[in-house]
């Protein structure tokens, strides 16, 4: 999976490699200069001229500055690389999650999904950008040191190469030591996030109902788990540091001991002993950073595992081959529910052998108590879920034949809740579609009676709305209505559209409905399904269906049902009327 995301970065990687190689060269020269300096300044015999020593010192400083400049360049390219790779990953994850079944989303809070799509990827971003810089840069330096050592003294080269191999193997062995500890920390964070999110959203509920103590008692175990998992993770991680540091000291000691031995035999100069020690010391940096990066690698592996987990979840709802509906977005379809069987969890039946039909341009009023399955029926029509039995058809074609984009392009939905983005009015109303002309938006707002509200917005369409507020419930719902108007679909579902509004806004919506339901420029009217608890909302219906505990209790033409005093619908009407008359 890493390869997929790194492949487009090959050009950047090439530039990066050049910088790293040049930087490694600059670093390798320094100890040789120091060796020459020591031998020239302190060796027996005739001391070198002072000018020679000064030029060696100047050369050393120059090499150091060059190495630093190259380092900055390498950082720039590796960061670019890391961020573009992980941005693509974030994009893919978001797209994938948006494609997954609703069951995936209802099982997870947005806070949890932020951790999955953003938190895990952010952890990877650091890894991507640092990995090449540290592991590849470090590896290059290590190799350069060993080659230099071989050229200087075969025995020293052999000893430190052997050491490097052993060190590398040990580091490899301890790599997997603590991968799971990050899993636990992340899980703890994810639980905490979900907990916090709910409490923040329900702050008024809690405070006004004296739930503070309860929340605090639930918070403590979560915080405790965060602290515990963090301590455990850090302690285990420390072992990796200890092993790496111990290794580095041993390598350093090896160079010193071998150097002392060779110098005592008169085979190398004292400057060479110091040079070997410096090279051995320089090996510590790549060994340590590689070690640290491996720690990061574990961190990243944990994130990667979770990302892969999400990416391998396949949506059970997949696009059909296509039904050629793309040019029929505004055409009113005939809708048939045929022998629908459905349960959200596969066991508890929500819809049981439901068959309903709505003719082209007809209005179906769907009635029933809360939990009778009305909303579920609408979700099936949108293919947010698929039924376990039976089928939903538009104009006789099973909706599973169509792509979801085709299907959803034909249907508009007004729910009782509207979620706003922290974005402009325009973006919220069009769901980020820049192709909708401003004039059309303004026209729709006026049609909906949102004119006075819109006129009061300081920056017009560019006024930012926040999810925190700024819109009353009624205004928010009218905005949801605006979304449907802008879409101009041939099939509209109103899900308890007027339930939360007061009578005045109800009337605004009735007026909006008038516009939505009337024939459009000579085309037939939209097919409409109105889901409501209240009788007034369905008074426009041509047909009525009453659901009860997942079954169709009664269905027929509204006028017929009204005329039959024994019908449930007629009884419901009289209940409503009784209430009105008293």
């Amino acid at each position, binding site marked *: 999976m890493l390869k997929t995301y790194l492949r487009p970065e090959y050009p950047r990687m090439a530039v990066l490699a050049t910088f790293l190689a040049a930087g490694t060269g600059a670093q390798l020269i320094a100890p040789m200069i120091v060796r020459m300096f020591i031998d020239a300044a302190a060796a027996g015999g005739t*001391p*070198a001229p*002072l000018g020679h020593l000064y030029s060696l010192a*100047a050369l050393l400083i120059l090499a150091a500055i060059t190495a*630093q400049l190259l380092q900055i360049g390498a950082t*720039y390219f590796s*960061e670019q690389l890391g961020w573009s790779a992980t941005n693509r990953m*974030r*994009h893919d994850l978001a*797209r994938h999650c*948006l494609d997954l079944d609703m069951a995936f989303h209802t099982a*997870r809070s*947005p806070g949890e999904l932020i951790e999955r799509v*953003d938190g895990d990827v952010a952890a990877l971003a650091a890894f991507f*950008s640092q990995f090449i810089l540290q592991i590849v840069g470090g590896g290059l330096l290590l190799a350069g040191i060993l080659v230099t050592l071989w050229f200087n003294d075969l025995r020293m080269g052999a000893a430190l190469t052997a050491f490097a191999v052993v060190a590398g193997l040990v580091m490899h062995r301890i790599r997997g030591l603590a991968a799971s500890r990050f899993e636990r920390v992340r899980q703890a964070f994810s639980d905490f996030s*979900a907990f916090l*999110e709910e*409490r923040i959203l*329900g*702050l008024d509920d*809690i405070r*006004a*109902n*004296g739930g503070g103590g*309860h*929340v*605090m008692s639930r918070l*403590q175990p979560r*915080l405790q788990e965060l*602290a515990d998992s*963090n301590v455990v993770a850090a302690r285990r991680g*420390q072992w990796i540091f*200890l092993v790496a540091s*111990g290794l580095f000291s041993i390598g350093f000691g090896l160079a*010193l001991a071998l150097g*002392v031995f060779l110098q*005592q035999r008169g085979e190398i100069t004292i400057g060479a002993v*110091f040079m070997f020690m410096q090279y051995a010391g320089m090996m510590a940096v790549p060994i340590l950073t590689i070690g640290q990066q491996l720690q990061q690698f574990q961190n990243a592996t944990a994130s990667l595992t979770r990302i892969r987990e999400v990416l391998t979840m396949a949506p059970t709802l997949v696009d059909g081959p296509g039904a050629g509906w793309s040019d029929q977005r505004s055409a009113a379809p005939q809708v048939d529910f045929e022998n629908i069987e459905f349960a959200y969890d596969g066991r508890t039946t929500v819809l049981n052998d439901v068959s309903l039909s709505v003719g082209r341009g007809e*209005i179906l009023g769907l009635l029933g*108590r*809360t939990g009778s399955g009305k909303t579920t029926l609408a979700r099936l029509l949108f293919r947010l879920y698929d039924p376990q039995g039976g089928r939903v058809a538009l104009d006789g074609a099973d909706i599973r034949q169509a792509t*979801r984009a085709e299907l*959803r392009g034909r249907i508009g939905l007004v729910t009782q809740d509207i*979620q706003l*983005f*922290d974005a402009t009015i325009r*973006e919220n109303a069009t769901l*980020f*579609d820049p192709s909708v002309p401003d004039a059309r938006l303004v026209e729709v707002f006026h049609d909906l009676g949102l004119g006075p509200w819109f006129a009061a917005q300081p920056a017009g369409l560019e006024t930012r709305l*926040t999810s*925190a507020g700024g819109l009353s419930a*009624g205004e928010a719902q009218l905005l949801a209505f605006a979304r449907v108007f802008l879409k101009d679909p041939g099939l509209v579902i109103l899900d308890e559209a007027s*339930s939360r509004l007061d*009578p*005045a806004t109800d009337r605004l919506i009735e007026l909006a409905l008038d516009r939505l339901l009337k024939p459009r420029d000579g085309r037939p009217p939209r097919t409409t399904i109105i889901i409501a*608890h*209240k*009788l*007034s909302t369905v008074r426009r219906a041509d047909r009525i269906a009453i659901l009860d505990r997942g079954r169709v209790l009664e269905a027929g033409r509204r006028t017929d049902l009204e005329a039959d005093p024994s019908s449930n619908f007629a009884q419901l009407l009289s209940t409503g009327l009784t209430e*009105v008359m008293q």
Partner: protein
Amino acid sequence: MTLDLLDLEAARPSEVDLPPPPRQTAFVQGLRIARARPGLLALSLALFALFYALPLIPGLIQREIFDTLSGRRPAGLDVWSLVALWMGAQLSPLAASYFANWCFVTFTSLTRQMMRANMMGWMMFARGPRPSPGTPGEALSRFRDDVSETIAFIEGWSETFGQMVFASLALVIMWRIDPLVTSAVIAPMLLVVVITQRITAGIHKYSRVAREAEARVTSFVGETFAAVQAIRVGAAEPRVLARLDRLNAERRRTAVRHRVYVTLLDTFGSGTSSLAFGLILLLAAGAMRSGRFTVGDFTLFAAYVGTATSAPRWLGRLLARKRTADVALMRIERMLGDAPLDVVTAATPPSARPAEPAGPLERLEVRGLTCRHASSGKGVTGVDFTLHRGQVLIVTGRVGSGKSTLLRGLLGLLPIDAGEVVWNDRPVEDPATFLIPPRCAYTPQSPRLFTESLRDNIRMGSGASDEDLARAVRLAVLDDDLGRLGQGLDTLVGTRGVTLSGGQIQRAAAARMFAGRPDLLVLDDASSALDVRTERAFWDRLFAEGGQTCIAVSHRLEAYRRADEILLLDDGRVVARGDLRTLLADSPLFREVWHETLQASGEPAADEPRGG
């Protein structure tokens, strides 16, 4: 672990250049945090000092080894014993590091826990209305990242302290060998202090910009998944992803710039140690030629120069962390509103205050309540009413007339501009902490349930008995639903449990309100998501219970009929009051609302053929 932090408030242009308010400094707060766990911190610092000071010893031994090799020193210990000693000294700091790390991570984990509990405690129990903590994503970054940044500053103390111990001891040792060559180490150290200051200022600026860009990505991801159904239904996936890409690109640009600046600081630091090493060569050249400065001395300088010159860099890094922590604390402060300085760093979190003494409700009086939203100017003005025990007050009016604002202002959930609430002749000092169970309970217009059992959601720590629960469930007309939920009251609800319908959520919230048997019930349109029969049952049972004192926003006929008084609001003012009969007779506006209510209830006579 460092977690980059997020910020949204600062994204607004007018606030970008605001300096942190002077009263909130990370240093003062850090000291307070340290005071909460003084022993653990002291132990950690001591272990860190040991970990940093121990590497001085191999440097001294190395000096002896090289002087022996060059024949400058008559052998005391033979060279191989020295090499063995050197090896031992080289390994000794590792043991110290293990315990230093253990102690310190325990300290930081516990103090992070402490801060988070303090923040939550304040939001739960503080007096007065709470400012909005922003989106959950923003609040999360306050709790997660800003707390981590604050504690990261204290982490910097231990590292800096260890570095300082090493640097001071190393300078003393070097000075005693050769003051002139030692100046080759000191001069660049001073340079570092000056230049680091400049670079860190840049880092500070760019890190803020980078975080803002990051926060926009995080918030947008959160909003996207909160609105996933709307996005699907609107087939807006490609457009949402395109927006994500734009935000991502901006985040990359700002993050890379910030990172390059950080690297500049790092490489400048290590560049300094190379520069110092070069200077040692320059200054030692003459002395070494004449034999005053030995090869052993040279190797000791070489061993110390790296760590010693990095000490000022650690100091610079510490200052940078302090700035970051200042900003983090400022954001936390802004989220908590009026919290005093010591709240977030107190050793124990805030808890519920003992309520003002008050008898059972006999009479509730609201005088001149004025409560306007600062931004929109909407709200209520000068609302008065009096409610006696057992009476029912219904608040009605059109959308935006201020009904919810009236209830929320009364309950102290919104800041009020004027007016007072009087409980049995006694003015309530702080409604937010007074009008809670057992005196009062509230069902908001869009109630929230939490991911825990239905029982816990209803009881919410109120200590309600099983009998109270049964009564609450019955009053809320939730009894039938319980049978249908798999495990009754033990059913796990909320985002990660069973998804309840809108009506069930509203009734569960009503049950929560009933559970503590409060004197006063405050309902905001509590039955709006209910069907006709359920809703009738709700009001029937509420009134059948008798003696309930209740303030409710409603448009329901059932409610109007039973009300002792109806307040009709229009544009935030009471325009009519009285019982149903009086209002129908006297108020044209009420008759209009009433008529609309009749229509909304489904009078078939109002049915019209389909338009057009």
